[in-house]
């Protein structure tokens, strides 16, 4: 099986850009699709990125992804930070019969 590791927290000022990493242990990050979910307190998660790079309708193009094979990591990039981006973010991927979530990253918009 594999693990997805995320930083516990990141913070940045409004208007700036933040990167949230998701590093896969055991297996290549590009073996299976990586998804990213946003979760605000008291709410269910919602998708911000699916199938590595795709954005659901309604998610602004301020959200994007970079995948780096050398570090075996995916990075959620949020540019032009807004107060409403403050939330927990989870990466997620899967293997044949297993789904795995990263531990989650709390984004604080200062």
């Amino acid at each position, binding site marked *: *099986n594999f693990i997805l590791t995320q930083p516990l927290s990141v913070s940045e000022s409004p208007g700036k850009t933040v990167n949230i990493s998701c590093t896969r242990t055991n297996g290549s990050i590009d073996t299976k*699709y990586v*998804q990213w*979910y946003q*979760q605000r307190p008291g709410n*269910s*998660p*919602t*998708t911000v990125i*699916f*199938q590595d790079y*795709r954005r*659901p309708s309604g998610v602004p193009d301020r959200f994007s992804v970079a995948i780096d094979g050398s570090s075996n990591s995916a990075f959620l990039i949020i540019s032009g930070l807004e107060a409403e981006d403050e939330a*927990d973010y*989870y990466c*997620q991927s*899967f293997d044949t*019969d*297993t*789904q*795995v*979530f*990263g*531990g*989650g990253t709390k984004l604080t918009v200062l």
Partner: protein
Amino acid sequence: QVELVQSGTEVKKIGASVKVSCRASGYDFIDYYIHWVRQAPGQGLEWIGRIHPDSGVTQYSPRFRGRVTMSRDLSVTTAFLEMTSLRSDDTAVFFCARWGERLLPPYETSSSQFDFWGQGTLVTVSS
């Protein structure tokens, strides 16, 4: 529109069992896997397992195998999660979620993601 509506808050004693339901509507129930995910207070998302609604075949995370049972009732398009031998550290919000890859054609609308989630069911386990 697609909806997953879960049953309400549960309070259980240590050692008891709990059964949470997830009623699906707005799509053909047998077309998509239903998964269950747990979130302990202040913690992250943890995958519990999934059920193939048509066949009833299940896969469970090794961490929960032997203590959870997933089932479904096609007549009411509802999936169920039962957890036994509850401990205090099982206190959590349990979510059901639809995995967006279609099991039947047409596959053009498939997407690899948890595209719809239930509202969550809080299960509190105490002595």
